């Protein structure tokens, strides 16, 4: 059985999600501070797990802005999953795009990157996510 795509529109407190199984690509865009971050991110983490199992690779493009601490925890789970896939020889990578005006977003991304050995690019843009 092939995995399905995920398409979720952004809300005030949750990012837009675009998970394309054929392309092996996951995109998240916006703020994340839902009341229950675990419930929001669980299907995304599951999708990523299956994508790696089926394709042996996944690329993640992030245009995330503010994350509350429970979203940070969920993202850490996602990056841990990518890290163990990387250790097992899978091809995984993260590109985190941010508006160069928003230094706090770059700092957040940097802190995640510290614990990752796979390709993790932090890319300044003049207007990220537009």
């Amino acid at each position, binding site marked *: 059985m092939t995995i399905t795509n995920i398409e979720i529109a952004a809300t005030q407190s949750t990012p837009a999600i675009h998970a394309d199984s054929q392309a092996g690509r996951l995109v998240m865009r916006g703020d994340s501070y839902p009341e229950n971050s675990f419930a929001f991110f669980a299907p995304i983490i599951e999708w990523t797990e299956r994508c790696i199992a089926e394709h042996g690779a996944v690329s993640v493009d992030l245009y995330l802005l503010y994350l509350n*601490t*429970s979203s940070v925890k969920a993202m850490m789970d996602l990056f841990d999953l990518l890290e163990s896939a990387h250790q097992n020889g899978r091809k995984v990578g993260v590109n985190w795009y941010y508006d160069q005006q928003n230094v*706090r977003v770059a700092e957040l991304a940097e802190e995640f990157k510290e614990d990752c050995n796979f390709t993790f690019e932090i890319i300044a843009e003049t207007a990220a996510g537009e």
Partner: protein
Amino acid sequence: MNHDDLRLIRESFDDKRILLCFNGPFSQGLIEEIGSALRTYLSSDAATSSALADVFGCYIEITQNIRSYAQSKGYDDVTASAIVVIGRNAERRYEVLAGNVVEEQDAARLMTRIEALQGMDKTQLKTAYKEQLRRPATPGAGAGLGLIDIARKASAPLSCSLRDTPNTARKFFSLRVVI
């Protein structure tokens, strides 16, 4: 409340440089709406993008902590009612203050945790944050990661206070964060 009461509230808001104040029970919807108003207000107040992000981040962590605590205790709307204030201090730095009712035994735990954070510098706070992030979530304990995150965004040690309430088993806890 009469007309003079209203004028006194206004004078107090002006005197204490209060930008925004909410007093009542928080729902996730209200947290989002007030947060959105806060962002708009801060941009028009010419806050830097970092100050805006730090004030907003503190506001979200504090209000979500308060809401999840009230929910875990099964508080009714009156007991769950909390106050949050965003303003500027005498040095023109943004400050976030919040107060809510907590059970006496939780109050002591909370004060101990904040006292521990007060003694940490930025490097120690970062280490504590990463350790807490790796710890499995303990339902009901709450506020662990959120408080460290708030302390990291603050430019001065967190300050807090406990006051009695008419209900002897409960205290009024308040927290002040200077950005």
